[in-house]
């Protein structure tokens, strides 16, 4: 069964069946070859894992627990409910996970914005994080779409360039750390995707009247394409199934729109220092198109930059009387809300720009009561400057 599409364009009805060999090499085979030659150590996906189909029909292993949470600076810094929702979901399913302090970002937001780095440094940053995950005894789960895309690029370069491997080995030797590469680069949204049915079993809010649009992150499905998850039951297997699969499992509607494949306009440097471009692209090519063609209650995405750009670009565009005003959140926040997570204490929706209240009302959330509950905890923290909100507070 395909996802119901509420509006044009019409998805193709032809069945898309892959024949013959995938057009690319299998990165795992190459990694294992290098391991056999003693060049590096491959960290295996821990059990239990689920196997899912990727673009060229290969199976990819997604670990269910023992994950090392490679956080995103943009999520933790500016959209903290995004990361919190990922951790909250793991806790609801009693998954063993690790939230490390000994983790740097991938530094790729800066790299794509300014190029003030080089291949060897970028690879060493990646491998340092991977090595630390291995030493901590957990498997990397990447929160950020940029990190996910960049680490796949790093993998391509590591696999194909002896000189780079030699350079990175020298760096790791100086840091007295091992040269480790994970068997799979796994994005948290892939974990959400394979957990979708379990999430639906714990769903407490009815989302059958919620209409969504989905924006897939470019660095998830365009930059090194072979790792992205596809499913013949979603978009006839012609577009990545990520995010849409979760929405379908939760009984909400995925409405289609003509610029689904377009980027969000983030631009890395543009969102920071040339925002007129990001704002124009996000609103004219994405938000207005969604509004006209699908009129969703919310748009869902699975990356830091996409949530930021699509959400924050709408405020000043609204002032120009443009047809905008769609709440934006991540798949993790949407899933957490479905399971009854607190909209402010867990999903931290007060850090988002677009008004979420009409959406929450449609979801059956009493946002006034919820805000009063958040304010009560915040008031306590204000009184006592050393206290923090605990997970128990968040679920109280």
């Amino acid at each position, binding site marked *: 069964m395909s996802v119901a599409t509420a509006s044009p364009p019409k998805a193709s009805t032809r069945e898309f069946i892959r024949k013959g060999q995938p057009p690319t090499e299998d990165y795992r085979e190459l990694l294992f070859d290098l391991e056999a030659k003693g060049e590096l150590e491959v960290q295996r996906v821990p059990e239990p894992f689920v196997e899912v189909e990727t673009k060229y029909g290969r199976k990819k292993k997604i670990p269910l627990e023992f994950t090392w949470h490679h*956080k*995103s*600076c*943009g999520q*933790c*810094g*500016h959209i*903290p409910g995004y990361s*919190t929702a990922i951790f*909250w979901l793991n806790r609801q399913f009693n998954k063993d996970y690790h*939230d490390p*302090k*000994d*983790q740097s*970002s991938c*530094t790729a937001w*800066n*790299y*794509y*914005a*300014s*190029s*003030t780095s*080089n*291949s*060897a*440094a970028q690879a*060493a940053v990646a491998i*340092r994080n991977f090595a630390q995950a291995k030493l901590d005894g957990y498997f990397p789960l990447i929160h950020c779409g940029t990190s996910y*895309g960049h680490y796949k690029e790093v993998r*391509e*370069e590591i696999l194909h360039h002896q*000189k780079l491997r030699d350079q990175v080995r*020298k*760096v790791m030797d100086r*840091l007295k750390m091992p040269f480790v590469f994970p068997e799979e680069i796994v994005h948290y949204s892939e974990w959400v995707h394979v957990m979708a049915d379990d999430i639906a079993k714990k769903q407490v809010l009815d989302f059958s009247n919620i209409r969504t649009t989905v924006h897939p992150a*470019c*660095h998830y499905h365009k*930059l090194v394409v072979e790792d992205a998850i596809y499913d013949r039951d979603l978009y006839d297997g012609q577009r990545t199934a990520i995010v849409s699969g979760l929405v379908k499992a939760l009984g909400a509607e995925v409405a289609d729109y003509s610029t689904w494949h377009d*980027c969000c*306009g983030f*631009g890395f*440097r*543009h969102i920071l*220092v040339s*925002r007129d*471009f990001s704002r124009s692209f996000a609103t004219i*090519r994405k938000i207005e198109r969604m509004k006209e063609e699908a009129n969703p209650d919310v748009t869902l995405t699975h990356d830091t930059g996409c949530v930021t750009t699509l959400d*924050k670009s709408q405020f*000043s565009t609204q002032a120009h009387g443009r047809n905008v005003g769609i709440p934006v959140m991540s798949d993790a926040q949407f899933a957490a809300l479905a399971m009854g997570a607190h909209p402010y*204490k867990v999903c931290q929706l*007060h*850090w988002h*720009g677009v008004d979420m209240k009409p959406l929450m009302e449609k979801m059956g959330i009493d946002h006034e009561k919820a805000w009063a509950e958040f304010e009560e905890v*915040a008031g306590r*923290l204000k009184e006592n400057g050393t206290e*923090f*909100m*605990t997970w128990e*507070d968040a679920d109280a």
Partner: protein
Amino acid sequence: MSIYKDAKYMDVPYEEKQKLFQEVKDDMRWDTTLYGCYECGICVAACPSARFYDFSPRVFAQIMAREDVDTFYELLNDSVWDCSQCFSCTRCPRQNNPGTIITIMREVAVNHGLSSAKKALQAYSRIIYKIMSTGTQVAPDMLQPDFFPDWGPDVKAVSENLDVWRRAIPPETMHTTELAWDVSEKTRLELYMIWKLTGNLEMIEKIDEGIFMILEEVMEELLDEHGYDIDDFENVLED
């Protein structure tokens, strides 16, 4: 010679342009970024930057394939910074990757401290400092109304309540205001060693001496406290 009559930068010696062009071609990624060009424009149709700037990934592919060194130099100065680095152009039927050609070109521009690169990065230098010294690029205290006036009243609300709202987030790594999360000192030190070992500090010195000096002062004090001498960390890329 450029094919364009109105070609710019004709005062820059051809040898200088050729040197930079060759550096792009010497990058290890070069061999997998360009396989010739159909001139079909599929990359342009997919490209967000092409919609709002006088910018085209097709032109990058063609100019590089044609080895038009003069126009290459023009793109290097006037166009590279418009790219959004989204890699929508990887939809190319020829398996070209104009986005990566641009990444490499930007790196060459930065390494040579071109004035166009310095200008493009002017407003950006404090972010470079943040990422290189802390390992996280985006910090909660960046959310200030004067930096993001177009993001609406929520930014003001966040900045006014920053300390309390950060402590009102359950994961214990995220109670920070100056960092996205509580990055360990070990991580920061190792990251700085990586920048040194891969020649990135030399590059930063060329592009923004002010940032380099602050970075050096702050980080070398930290290294010192932990008994490291930064001079022990030689550039491994020069071997």
